[in-house]
């Protein structure tokens, strides 16, 4: 069990960016886009079998050819000034059937990622994910930055469109980060390594959506480009953002028209969304008690119905 390196590149002053699937696939989309834009080279992986069950078998004419597992892959790119290590995981390891990493496996995987980071001398590790908040989907999402040591707070303030948790209305600097994005920060702190989580804002009513939320991925990628001091063309997100917004509008219209959902619930969500649209991004805050569980439940039910068509046979 461990890391398998195909090669050991010498890197200058590298930083590491990590992405896993999660809400809106915000982090993984940002990191994977960076990988594609840089034509980053694959140089290693974490052996999957201790963390994941296989998801596909290939049998040809009676012979077992291959068993495919979710991948956890390392890539690198040399800028000459600040080199880049990317880590992309197809799935988060979990003890039970949850999307987010939990338990011993997640803890062990965090250590393996950090082992690689340490081996290649990465100065800072960045994880990336979603910040579920009260923002309207038409606004540009901000990026919440959470470091694992107070000394890093000032560094993050230099980046545009980035805020600390204490700047979020009503948060008092408190909160939590689910899955590996958070766990990795904690484990890095145990090992006295610098790590920061960058989370793109996503409207709370979309947290269960089956589609990605590219607007937030773009915002996270913009922060990556500042960290790397390099220009990254984010225009490729435009079409995806347009399509996602069309999906959201259609979905909400469908929600408002669904008669099986009580009128009171539908009206409440419509009012909330209108209010968010009027209030602007500055009013963003973590989802609180005002958002009734009932609304979220009903939205999730509709999202689940959308997902059903994509289910794989077992």
């Amino acid at each position, binding site marked *: 069990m461990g890391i398998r390196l195909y090669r050991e590149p010498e890197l200058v002053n590298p930083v590491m960016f990590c992405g896993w699937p999660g809400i809106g696939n915000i982090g993984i989309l940002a990191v994977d886009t960076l990988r594609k834009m840089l034509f980053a080279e694959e140089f290693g992986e974490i052996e999957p079998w201790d963390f994941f069950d296989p998801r596909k078998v290939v049998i040809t004419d009676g012979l077992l050819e291959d068993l495919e597992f979710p991948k956890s892959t390392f890539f690198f790119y040399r800028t000459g000034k600040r080199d880049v290590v990317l880590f992309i995981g197809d799935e988060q390891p979990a003890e*039970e059937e949850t999307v987010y990493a939990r338990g011993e496996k997640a803890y062990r995987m965090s250590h393996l990622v950090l082992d690689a980071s340490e081996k290649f001398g990465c100065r800072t590790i960045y994880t990336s994910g979603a910040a579920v908040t009260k923002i309207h989907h038409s606004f540009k999402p901000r990026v919440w930055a959470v470091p694992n040591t107070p000394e890093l707070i000032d560094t993050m303030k230099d980046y545009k469109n980035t805020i600390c948790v204490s700047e979020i209305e009503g948060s008092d600097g408190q909160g939590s980060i689910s899955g590996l994005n958070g766990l990795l920060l904690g484990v890095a702190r145990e090992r006295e390594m610098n790590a920061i989580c960058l989370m793109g804002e996503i409207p709370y009513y979309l947290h269960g959506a089956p589609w990605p939320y590219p607007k937030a991925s773009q915002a996270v990628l913009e922060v990556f480009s500042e960290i790397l001091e390099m220009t990254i063309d984010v225009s490729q997100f435009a079409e995806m953002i347009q399509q996602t917004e069309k999906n959201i509008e259609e979905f909400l219209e469908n929600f408002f028209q669904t008669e099986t959902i009580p009128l009171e619930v539908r009206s409440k969500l419509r009012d909330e969304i209108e209010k968010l649209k009027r209030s602007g991004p500055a009013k963003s805050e973590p989802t609180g008690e005002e958002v009734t569980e009932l609304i979220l439940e009903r939205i999730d039910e509709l999202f689940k119905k959308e997902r059903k068509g994509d289910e794989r046979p077992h």
Partner: protein
Amino acid sequence: MKDLIKFTLQPELEKPSLIIGWREDPGRLGPNVINYLNKTMMNRSFCQISPVDFFSLGGVEIKGNVARLPESRFYAGVRNDLITFLSDFPHFNQYTFLNTILDIAQDYCKVEEVYTVSGLVSPIAHTIPRRTFAVYNEPALQEKLRGYGLRDISYEGPPHLNSYLLWAAQKRGLRGVSLWPQIPFYLAASEDPQAVRLTLSFLNRRFNLNADLKEWNENIKEQYVKISRLRARNPEVQTFIERLETGLSLTEAEEMKLAEEVPKFLRKKG
């Protein structure tokens, strides 16, 4: 590792083959084949894998009026070249579980070949001659078993635990084959004596078991008679099975109806 495994006997073995079955198997193929082999070869359990790391132990399951924890046991008996293993499907840590089986097989028992038996749920009628499909983890074994009437299969999709086991065995250089006799979908939830006999016939030939399969012939006859009675009483069931017999397919609703009616009738006594 030591805590995972508990030996109760130390059988003397001579490069044995290992036959693996799973309790939760369509048509109860796995438990029926392994239990029959254990009975025929006077096998006794000699080793078990602790359930703690592999199963949710939130209580006990009641089956056949008896409460029991999930069990994973190896058996050996009069034959020193053949052992069996019967287990529940592990709920988690599959890789460790499969490697624990293979550690016992390879390091302790010096197993040379692994055979798994599982039912392949198929859209066929019980009156149609069955086929047994096979998946090998190395070509030499495939070659060796030509002439036994096994059919090669091609498939891409979510893997069964048997494929995972074959892959783990392949990584260690241990050859193996998984056997997949067809089970009519409407017998998947009950018993399928015909698939059991088909599997035992193969094992009989392969290992010269001299096993008397009369009992299974009787079971097959009995099931035929019962289903014929149902067909005579229930025109819908008759139509559906007849369509399958002529190679026609059923709609999802029709399949569900048949899969509900047949096991319900077979469960009735008499």
